[in-house]
């Protein structure tokens, strides 16, 4: 029963396709199946987007000891509908001497890339929308085009603030793209393939019944996941690193000149980017749609995926609620001086772990390597930057 429940969506799709499978040529069938995938994907994640946008405000509220939006619908659940309608009916202002085409294309491109990156994540047992041999690479390739889109947004609106915001965003995203990819490297190295399904497959086994072989439980896996999660935060311009559209400084960064539906798409793209990054994180480190314990296997795979996803999202929102915004140069330094070396050590630690027999001994050895590098780095970075005495500068 669990299997049929697990594969319910797949069967549904097969059922739909059966209508046209007989009559149409095969490329039409292919297109149809990919269309179905896309449709379900959009449906699921757009509703999730709406839900999360409200939940985020309610959770933040609760964190700040206040209620979130609770006026619209029961417990404020219809708030996204209200927001959506608000966005739609707002006038779409385009700056006069802005670069019309670029201005218009920017939001489209951002949304497209975000959605594209969703396509390769395995949501459940053989529920990966597009199975590409170099799935992970596809994810990052598409991810990297967001910078161009952000730039187009910044440039198209012909506004100094937006331009500056775009610059900052791009700088930030480029410098964190490197650690992001290098943390993924150990996983791919251990699994030996760029295909997400194979990666999830590699985390299938359980040791002693209740210990799943997720990579996050290996020393290098843990550090890699943390680094991956932080880079993910930066990639999606989330809270601690949401400098580009830091309200207090440069209005809305590259999105200042956008209003109405274009702004909505930017907003949506941001959330979908967040979903994609966390989805990938889950696939790589948290065993994808695998159950944490063996005996909970009966629950369908996609349920586990979304449970893990919601946990990660909560962490996102949690972070947004608590951490202050970091300065741009601190972000940069942090990336190049701490994240990159640590990422490389994860690769080394993974190698050590692998060659010392993947057992406890390997575990300990890789932990030692990581600990050693961590401490030297902290000493190195720390000594040179004692906390500068607080200097007060008053406006003249």
């Amino acid at each position, binding site marked *: 029963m669990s299997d049929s429940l697990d594969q319910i969506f797949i069967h549904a799709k097969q059922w739909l396709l059966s209508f046209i499978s007989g009559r149409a*040529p095969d*490329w039409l069938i292919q297109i149809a199946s990919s269309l179905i995938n896309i449709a379900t994907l959009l449906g699921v994640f757009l509703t999730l987007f709406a839900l999360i946008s409200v939940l985020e405000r309610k959770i933040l509220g609760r964190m700040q000891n206040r209620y979130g939006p609770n006026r619209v619908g029961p417990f404020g659940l219809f708030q996204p509908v209200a927001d959506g309608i608000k966005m739609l009916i707002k006038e779409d202002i385009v700056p006069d001497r802005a*670069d019309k*085409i*670029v201005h218009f*294309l920017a939001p489209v491109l951002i949304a497209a890339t975000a959605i594209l990156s969703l396509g390769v994540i395995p949501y459940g047992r053989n529920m990966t929308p597009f199975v*590409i*041999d*170099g799935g992970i*690479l*596809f994810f*990052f*390739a*598409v991810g*990297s*085009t967001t*910078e*161009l889109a952000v*730039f*187009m947004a910044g*440039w198209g609106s012909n506004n100094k603030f937006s*331009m500056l915001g775009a610059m900052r965003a*791009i700088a930030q995203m*480029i410098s964190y*793209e490197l650690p992001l990819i290098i943390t993924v490297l150990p996983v791919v190295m251990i699994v*030996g*393939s*760029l295909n997400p399904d194979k990666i999830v497959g590699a985390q299938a086994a359980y040791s002693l019944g209740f210990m799943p072989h997720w990579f996050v439980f290996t020393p290098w896996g843990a550090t890699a996941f943390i680094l991956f999660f932080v880079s993910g935060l930066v990639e999606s311009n989330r809270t601690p690193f949401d400098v580009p559209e830091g309200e207090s400084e440069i209005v809305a960064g590259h999105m200042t000149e956008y209003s109405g539906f274009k702004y909505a798409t930017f907003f949506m793209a941001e959330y979908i980017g967040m979903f994609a990054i966390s989805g990938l994180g889950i696939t790589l480190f948290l065993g994808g749609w695998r159950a944490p314990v063996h005996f909970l296997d009966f629950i369908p795979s996609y349920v586990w995926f979304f449970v893990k996803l919601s946990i990660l999202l909560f962490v996102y929102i949690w972070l947004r609620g608590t951490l202050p915004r970091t300065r741009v140069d601190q972000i940069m330094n942090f990336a190049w001086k701490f994240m990159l070396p640590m990422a490389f050590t994860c690769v080394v630690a993974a190698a050590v772990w692998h060659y010392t027999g993947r057992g406890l001994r390997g575990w300990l050895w890789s932990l030692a390597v990581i600990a050693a590098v961590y401490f030297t780095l902290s000493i190195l970075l720390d000594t040179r930057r004692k906390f500068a005495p607080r200097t007060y500068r008053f406006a003249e």
Partner: protein
Amino acid sequence: MSSIAFVAITILTLAAALAAATLQKLMHAALSFAVMFVGISAFFFLLGAEFVGLVQIFVYIGAVAVLIVFTILLTRDDVGKVQSFNWSGVIVAIAVFAGLVWAIANTKSLPLTPPLIEPVRVQRIGELLMTNYVWPLQCVGVLLTAALIGALILVMEEKT
């Protein structure tokens, strides 16, 4: 189906390339340049070399396009002025094109149909990289670091 795709992609790429070559507005040209590379990677997908396509997107659109756009940004003061367009280049290009086409037409063994192949998996490429092509890989590594440092030095603001 693939022939239709082939035609579509060709049109997309060539149009984007022509736009990149001829558009007066620099930014539009640069962006069409990026679009062209999407077209080219599509080509690669079509020819069964996914990995190269992905790398193409990743490298060109991810890095080079951004670089170009940034350079255009940094050298903006005369962007507004109309850049003159000299026609001798066009003539030479057309001549070369005609020459190449003539050469292609003349070589006998070319009109082949694509044989069926199983797609090259990334793992296979990884193996090759690590076995036959280790030396070129190291050289490219050195080259890239050198380029990195070189570019940095060239662009670094003098401390004065």
